[in-house]
């Protein structure tokens, strides 16, 4: 008999070593997330996947699934919290969706739609961030960076390159490039790197191909982020078990 826990009252089976998020995704229950990727070690920084277990908040991407525990996920309070966290991500950066080439393919934008975000609510911070277009093939637009460290981890864990790091603290932290000049052109980045492919926003993009997909044929014109993520996770499990 397999182990299980309860997610909003529904029994969710899990395997030994799975986190709450992994088990929920395996069972077809989407929990919003931006910094979590199945290919990478969990990071627990975006806090979107927060759930309540025994009255306390936990990041479901790092919390091990445990037999019989009661997990609250889709409560009005948690939905409001996730919406507020997403709003904060928008106002802490400079996200201009109308002219962004990732619009329609951006996970931050898709998550905002999924969560029913209607406005930014909080005052815009308008941080001054330096764009790095020095590389001939890859563009780094820090205005769009949400500091989820997906590129940092992907570069280390999947590309074996260690191109990126976060420096500074708190709201002043920013994405840095590990190169002698601090510029992308002097790093080992390549457009095929997973660090580029996995960026959930338009912070890291391949140059000169923007807007190649017309409206109606972009990723999130076809399906919601929940459907996409669940399908991709199921495919991944089918391949890797």
């Amino acid at each position, binding site marked *: 008999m397999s182990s299980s826990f309860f997610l909003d009252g529904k029994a969710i089976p899990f395997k030994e070593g799975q986190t709450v998020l992994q088990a929920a995704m395996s069972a077809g229950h989407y929990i919003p997330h931006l910094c979590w990727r199945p290919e990478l070690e969990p990071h627990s920084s975006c806090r979107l996947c927060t759930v309540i277990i025994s009255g306390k908040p936990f990041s479901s991407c790092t919390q091990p699934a445990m037999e019989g525990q009661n997990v609250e996920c889709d409560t009005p309070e948690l939905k409001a919290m996730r919406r507020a966290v997403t709003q904060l991500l928008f106002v802490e950066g400079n996200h201009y969706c*109308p002219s*962004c080439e990732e619009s329609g393919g951006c996970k931050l934008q898709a998550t905002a739609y999924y969560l029913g975000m209607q406005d930014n609510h909080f005052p815009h911070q308008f941080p001054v961030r330096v*764009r790095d*277009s020095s590389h001939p093939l890859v563009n780094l637009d820090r205005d769009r960076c949400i500091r989820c460290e997906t590129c940092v981890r992907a570069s280390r864990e999947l590309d074996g390159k260690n191109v990126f790091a976060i420096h500074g603290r708190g709201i002043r932290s920013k994405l840095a490039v590990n190169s002698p000049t601090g510029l992308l052109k002097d790093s080992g980045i390549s457009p095929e790197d997973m660090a580029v492919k996995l960026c959930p926003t338009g912070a890291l993009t391949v140059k000169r*191909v923007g*807007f190649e997909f*017309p*409206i109606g044929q972009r990723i999130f014109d076809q399906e919601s982020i929940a459907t996409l993520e669940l399908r991709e996770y199921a495919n991944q499990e089918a391949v890797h078990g």
Partner: protein
Amino acid sequence: MTPIANMQLETAIHPEGLRRTVIEPITRVEGHGKITLLMDEQNHVKQARLHIVEFRGFEKFIQGRPYWEIPVLVQRLCGICPVSHHLAAAKAMDMLVGARTLTPTAEKLRRLLHYGQTLQSHALHFFHLASPDLLFGYDAEVATRNIIGVIQAHPGIAVQGVMLRKYGQEVIRVLSGKRVHGNFAIPGGVNKGFTKEDCNYLKKDLDQVIKWSQSAVEIARGLYTGNLEENASFGAFRSNFLSLAAPDGSFELYDGKLRATDADGGRIFDQVDYANYLRHIHEEVKSWSYMKFPFIVALGNDAGWYRVGPLARINNAERMPTPLAEEARKRFAAMGEGGPVHATMAYHWARMIEMLYAAEAIRELLDDPDIYGKDLLIQGERALEGVGVIEAPRGTLFHHYVVDENDAVVKANLIVATTNNNTAMNSAVREVAAHYLDGKELTEGLLNHIEVAIRAYDPCLSCATHALGKMPLEVELLDAQGRQVHRLIRNADGSCEEG
């Protein structure tokens, strides 16, 4: 009114003690502007100005952005004619990626998008914005002088306008994914092909659209000729005209070369490659407007100002490429008796001829097998500078960009149709103010006469103000008795001096 008398009303010699009347905001135009009148005790007009008081600054804040983002970014200049900015920027980006000639499919689909845009914008202007003045009279009751009044009194005309605009918007939606602010043109071509289903959908209503467009030409012609004497003189003045023209001198909206004609119809220049526009067009800045004043270099800033838009294009065209529009153009041209038509109010008639052309041109393109091609993109040798010029609904639109070796925009210059018409609109304001308002007690109806003259140019004020740090300013500190204590002047080159 002589040209000198007209110009004298730009700046009053002794503004002190004059009474100031402000029309703000100017209504039924896109964007925010105001008109100021300075009048003496006998209500004689001493100064009349059109001020564009909003500031957009696109030329500045697109600096640093990657070039492929620009056609999508700059279309946010406007909600009425975003396609014009989208295409003008895309044409400039074509030069950057070395795509001097697009594939036939890409060019024809861009043209289709542009004609849809021209159709919807012209319908919007004539029916929604201008027709209340034309149908009810310039000083009709203000409560009915609006689109709701048109719907109530002339429901057939109102429906025609709404449906014409809807059709143009549908052309845009089918191609770019959205009626407003979609994306379609990318550097070197377009991002989406065209299908038989798209074609069948757009052909369904096209015959009716062409009939409505023909009827619109007749409405505009009837309104103009029905009160010929007043319409021919209302806000009228002689001017130069600038537009694109096809190599054979015929009407052209999407591409072609620059043609400028003088007030008698003589050529100032012709078939000028628009990439060299800076050799022929310069811009002047004045301290009282955020909008610049372009002029033809060879004639200087006093005599070199010109008009653009429907009146300029129809005057400059030797023929229209489609039969119904050509027939309409000939009737229009007859009004000029061998020379250009100069009447400000003739803009509406010319605009409807263009709308008819757009509808006919859409039909020709929908019958062209090239639109189903799969070859959508082309690229060549990269360049660091690109210029795109297009005939936007309101007139000739210049987009000029310089990028660095990292693909980021470092410099941008936008000369928007409304900017090109800046001096002309001010001349029309002064003309109407002097003729209709001088010496009279001002009423709402009289003030609307000035707005009528401006509306004829269909200005898009929010498109037109982008220069940052170039405007000369004059700051005066006065004491309680109105005596000048201190004066500081910032010149157009950025230098400051104490006056």
